[in-house]
């Protein structure tokens, strides 16, 4: 099956520092890719380049065959993107914000209302439509960002920490939502929560110091450590080479 997301040798340098180093992967329809790694490993930078926001120093990214740098508008139309920290305009109400995004996405009239209602139902935002975003809790803000990304039912979803700040019930809802959408889409989510990878991802990539250090289905990945737990694999692969042991 054709890959909806293609990343080829993507590299990003900031001065002497290489944040993302030669990262390549492809995600096909039906795949949910969990993007794991310690803080500062280059997850968000990779996602920014994939979304066409940050120009790469080398390499390329394509969404449904459209290069995000040379054909950005076509690529962005097919992409739903939740940036790091789920930024939204703080003084807009949830409703006004979603109407703005829907209008920019080219929806009008009844279709626009329908799209917004659908996204609001998926993310359970119905009760806060008239509230300014800045008055909302972290979990609601995250869901506003999610609703914005789902509005146009895109074939490609790139979600940077979609469950960060959500309570366990909301986390479960978002995971169910992702699992439900998975068959029709190519989805990339970044997360720190390893159980999430087990729960929703068909494949996991671990990135450390800008490089891909593991790329396999979660079940296979777990076998890399004798304990068979993803957490131990993650620590084994990404921990600094000589961990300092401290006596308590």
């Amino acid at each position, binding site marked *: 099956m054709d890959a909806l997301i293609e990343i080829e040798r993507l590299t990003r340098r900031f001065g002497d520092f290489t944040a993302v180093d030669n990262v390549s992967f492809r995600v096909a329809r039906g795949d949910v890719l969990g993007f794991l790694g310690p803080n500062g490993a280059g997850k968000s930078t990779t996602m920014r380049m994939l979304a066409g926001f940050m120009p790469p120093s080398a390499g390329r990214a394509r969404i449904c065959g459209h290069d995000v740098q040379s054909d950005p508008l076509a690529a962005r139309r097919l992409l739903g993107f939740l940036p790091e920290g789920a*930024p939204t305009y703080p003084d807009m109400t949830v409703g006004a914000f979603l109407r703005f995004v829907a209008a920019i996405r080219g929806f009008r009239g009844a279709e626009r209302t329908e799209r917004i209602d659908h996204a609001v139902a998926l993310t359970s935002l119905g009760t806060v439509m008239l509230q300014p975003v800045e008055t909302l809790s972290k979990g609601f803000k995250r869901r506003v960002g999610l609703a914005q990304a789902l509005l146009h039912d895109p074939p490609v979803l790139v979600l940077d920490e979609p469950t960060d700040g959500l309570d366990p019930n909301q986390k479960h809802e978002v995971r169910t939502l992702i699992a439900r959408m998975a068959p029709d889409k190519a989805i990339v989510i970044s997360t720190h929560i390893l159980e999430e990878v087990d729960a929703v991802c068909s494949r996991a990539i671990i990135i450390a110091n800008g490089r891909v250090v593991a790329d396999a289905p979660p079940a296979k990945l777990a076998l890399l450590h004798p304990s068979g737990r993803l957490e131990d694999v993650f620590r084994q692969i990404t921990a600094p080479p000589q961990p300092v042991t401290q006596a308590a």
Partner: protein
Amino acid sequence: MRNTLLIARRELAGYFATPVAVVFIVIFLVLQGALTFSVGNFFQRGQANLVAFFNFIPWVLLLLVPALTMRLWAEERRLGTVELLLTLPVTETEAVLGKFLAGWAFCIIALALTFPFVITVNLLGSPDNGVIAASYLGAILVAGAYLAIGGAASAATKNQVIAFVLALAACFLFAAASSQMVTDFLSTQVPALAATALKLGVLARFQTFMRGVIPARDLIYFASLIGFWLFANVIILEHTKAA
């Protein structure tokens, strides 16, 4: 074009969703009123025109427009919303134009609210309303020039204070370039620059509008100045957005 207008509408609504709009308009009107009547001696002049009013417009706008533009991009970058906006299917040019148009529409609203001056002077005498209209057009163009400069300054930094100071300094350069003091200084010290400074300055151009003249070359001047800084804004934004 549709996206530009959508962004402009969102941005303009943003001014009114926060105290920015009210504070800006009130301070603008109070400053203009105080300056016109006290420093400008509106009544003592005994002339039925708004020269006392328009003389201060470029300077009051010089102070207030950078306050309006400082948040344009600096705040988007601080909040991270620039990442959201520029990964929607809009181009940088559409976003820059949208924000500029919103600021311009807002300045036009603020200028329109000075209508009591026009009514007052019409009640007291019979002024040349054509001259007043031309002066308003000049004021709108000056505001546009400052907005374009300020927008580019805001794209250059995440820090709103720096954006304000940069915009103020750059606008001041363009405002003062054609003033008597600068041209006198330049013509004795660096004569080669004096003519250029006179041509680049905003004030001399505005004064032709205040005389009731709308020369094509001044319209072209303002269009190029605004166009240049909007273009600079797009370029700066492309380089700084993800930094």
